[in-house]
């Protein structure tokens, strides 16, 4: 009951500016308005493009020795050479490709599993919700690392297995987020209206629920990619990755195994680590910017300790 006469009407609905997520091109709006999102997306795209063009742009073949072991950076080799005399830059580019493939693929699998479970649990509730959530809880509770070790040990090390192991670690967060969102959307008046009109569950899920949780899912996906890449690096570093492939994690691992540190060959370790860090940061910035935009009230505090500006007298106004 009562008219919505609160300040948010005066602040946000000036020209009927929509809350982010409530119209088609919300992503473009987030990009336009957030420097953080712009940088994050730019870095992300840069890495993706480089990875895509890897076979064409890597200066040297990654299997051919081109110089002495652990040669320091020079004009021909800006990142030096590794323990096998192979150009580090080429390794980084190639490694980035595989790392990102693993990261994105694992995220996709996690999204599909987690999203599916979250959707079913959130929408249908009841015993399906109970069962699915107990399963989810079970997976949350199992410690990540021992699980990864055991699966890798039992299953063997290969990229595909790596992808699935990482997905196994990631899907639970998605499941819980999706479930919470779906539950809340399900209670919205327009969904109830559709149901009372007799719309089928499938129709409601595809036309009302999924579009509404789309933006949040997107933010969650981006953030999950960051974690997936980190997990890949960590698992590779621990020797659980595929030793035959070249990933950033493997690069670091080999460097450690092959005494790069004691040789003083920092270029064999740090650039790869930096790449991982940059990629993760880019994902975080983009994902967080989307999340913040979806929840504008996080940014504006109405009655807050931060105070207003008082203009000196005899002014017409700040303009």
């Amino acid at each position, binding site marked *: *009951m009562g008219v919505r006469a609160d300040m948010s009407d005066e*602040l946000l609905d000036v020209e009927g500016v929509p809350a982010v997520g409530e119209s088609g091109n919300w992503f473009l709006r987030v990009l336009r308005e957030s420097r953080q999102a712009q940088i994050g997306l730019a870095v992300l795209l840069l890495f993706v493009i480089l990875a895509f063009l890897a076979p064409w742009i890597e200066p040297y073949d990654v299997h051919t020795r081109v110089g002495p072991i652990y040669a320091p950076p020079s004009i021909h080799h800006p990142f030096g050479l590794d323990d096998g005399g192979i150009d580090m830059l080429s390794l980084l580019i190639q490694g980035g490709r595989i790392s990102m493939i693993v990261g994105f693929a694992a995220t996709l699998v996690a999204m599909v599993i987690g999203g599916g479970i979250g959707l079913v649990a959130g929408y249908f509730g009841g015993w399906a919700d109970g069962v699915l959530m107990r399963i989810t809880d079970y997976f949350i509770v199992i410690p990540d690392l021992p699980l990864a070790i055991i699966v890798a040990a039992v299953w063997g090390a290969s990229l595909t297995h790596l992808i699935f192991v990482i997905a196994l670690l990631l899907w639970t967060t998605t499941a819980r987020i999706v479930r919470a969102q779906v539950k809340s959307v399900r209670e919205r008046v327009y969904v109830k209206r559709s149901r009372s009109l007799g719309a089928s569950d499938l129709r409601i899920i595809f036309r009302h629920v999924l579009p509404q949780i789309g933006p949040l899912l997107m933010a969650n996906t981006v953030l999950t990619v960051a974690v997936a890449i980190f997990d890949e690096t960590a698992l590779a570093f621990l020797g659980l990755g595929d030793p035959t492939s070249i990933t950033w994690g493997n690069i670091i691992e080999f460097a450690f195994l092959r005494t790069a540190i004691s040789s003083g060959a920092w270029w064999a370790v740090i650039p790869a680590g930096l790449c991982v860090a940059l990629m993760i940061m880019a994902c975080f910035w983009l994902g967080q910017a989307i999340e913040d935009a979806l929840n504008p009230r996080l940014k504006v505090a109405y*009655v807050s300790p931060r105070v*207003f500006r008082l*203009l000196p007298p005899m002014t017409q*106004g*700040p*303009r």
Partner: protein
Amino acid sequence: MTLLEVRDLHVWFDLSGSRQLHAVQGVSLDVDAGERVGLVGESGCGKSTTILAILGLLPSSASVAGEVRLEGASILSPEEEVARPHRWRDIAMVFQGAMNALNPVKTVEAQIVEPMELHGTAEGAAARKRAGELLEMVGIAPSAGARFPHEFSGGMRQRAALAMALACDPKVLLADEPTTALDVMVQAQILELLERLARDLGLSLILVTHDLPVVAQVCERAAVMYAGEIVEEGAMERLFHSPRHPYTRMLFAATPDLYGDEDVLSIPGSPPRLDRGIVGCPFRSRCDRAFDRCERERPVLRWVEGGGSAACHLNDLPAGASAGST
């Protein structure tokens, strides 16, 4: 004696893309001791922003100009040392939806004691005793103070919010839509309580609401706001029986009366955007008596017959003249 003076208050809010929303456009208001004044308007007119400005509770995206004086002393300032001593001790507020904003993990009594201790008017056992007295004043048994807000009904929570506002014995009480979400009977109880408290405690009351009949019942005087400014102000009786601004007249006509026979009006169109400058009268696109002067010139508040003021060019026309003759 004028207790609270608001002079030419302006509030701008920053919007994305370096635009600004001119939410309050030159509001002036006087409130005497013991007076009950209504601030009436529909959503977006700036009434809530106005009283938040009086208390100095605007966010950092706000720019403010103008003056607010309490008993002669200027209290409008971002400096906490200027504004804070008056908050709650001189001016207190019951916020919109206050009954839903009570702290769920503190007892009601603790929440009434809190402002007393924060503002140094009482503490410990003395504060708790006063909390009990306040609860009784608002019609709640003092022993209920040990309960938590979720154990109270909506009406009781609103009373508790009222008790919190009165904790430091203020001179002025600002109430923002105090009965909006309440049932008719509970609303009647709260309004009667407000009236009684105002009288018994000698409080000045500014009642902000969109509900004209509520203001008609509780307040002696009211200011009608539209598009960020006061368009008419005066005694409730004059506003109802001879309004001097078309918006006031149409607003009354849009409010159904239980027993009346006249048609209930609606006002076509919608309020102007406040992120752009307004040329001419802000109400002209919806007014049934607008004429050419209304397009060019923005009316200012002027004294009108019968007391009070109104901002409308029609009042400048000699009696009997039609709007066509300019």
